[in-house]
C-alpha cells in the first residue's frame, strides 16, 4: 500500500515571501498522480495543483509550483508571494493509476500560517 508523509505539522511564512511544504511518498508503482489540496477553516478541500508522474516538467499554477523528484519520491509545494488567504491546512495526496475508484491517499497535513 502507498503511504504519504508530510513531516512539517506547522509552517509559518511572512506575507509576500516564499514557503516550501514537504511531502514524501512510498510506492512501488512507476506511474501515478500526485496532488496538493488546501483546506481553509471552512473545511472544504480545494485542489491546488496536480502532477502526473510520467511528466518530467514540474506543474505550476500561478503562485503555486511543485518540485517533483521522482527518484527521491518527493513532491514539495512552493508558494510564492504568500498572501494572508493562503493560511490553511495543506494536504499532499497520491492516486494510483491502478485505482479504478480514483481514491486518494492523503498525508497528515501541514498547517500554514501567514504573518502580516
Amino acid at each position, binding site marked *: 500500500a502507498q503511504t504519504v508523509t508530510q513531516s512539517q505539522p506547522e509552517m509559518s511564512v511572512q506575507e509576500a515571501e516564499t514557503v516550501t511544504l514537504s511531502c514524501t511518498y512510498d510506492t512501488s508503482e512507476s506511474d501515478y498522480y500526485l496532488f496538493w489540496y488546501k483546506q481553509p477553516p471552512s*473545511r472544504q478541500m480545494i485542489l491546488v495543483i496536480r502532477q502526473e508522474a510520467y511528466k518530467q516538467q514540474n506543474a505550476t499554477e500561478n503562485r503555486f509550483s511543485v518540485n517533483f523528484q521522482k527518484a527521491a519520491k518527493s513532491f514539495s509545494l512552493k508558494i510564492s508571494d504568500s498572501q494572508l488567504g493562503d493560511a490553511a491546512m495543506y*494536504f499532499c495526496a497520491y*492516486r494510483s493509476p491502478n485505482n479504478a475508484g*480514483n*481514491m486518494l491517499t*492523503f498525508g497528515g497535513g501541514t498547517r500554514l500560517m501567514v504573518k502580516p
Partner: protein
Amino acid sequence: GAGVSQSPSNKVTEKGKDVELRCDPISGHTALYWYRQSLGQGLEFLIYFQGNSAPDKSGLPSDRFSAERTGGSVSTLTIQRTQQEDSAVYLCASSLRLAGSLIYEQYFGPGTRLTVT
C-alpha cells in the same frame, strides 16, 4: 453551479446512538466518496460509489459503518452505536468521469463535524 453539500454541518451525539450524515453531490457527477478526517490526521478513505456498480467498502473501519446512495445521487453515511473514536470530520466528494481522461478531479463538500460524547 452548486457544489457538494453536506448536512448537518455539526453533530453532537451520545455514545451508543446512531447517526446519519448526508451528502448531496454535484449534479451529474457519477462518483461519490466518503472520507474521514480525525483530529490531527489526514483524510482516510471510507467508501466509494460509481454509478450503479457495487460500492467499494474497503475503507470502512467496522461493520458499524454503512452507506447508501439512492438514485445515483444523494448519499447517507450511517454510523451505528457510535463510539468516542468515531469523533471526526466526515468529508464527502464527488467527481465526473471524463471520457478519455485518467484524472477525475474530486470536489469536496464542507464536511460534517461529528462529536461523540
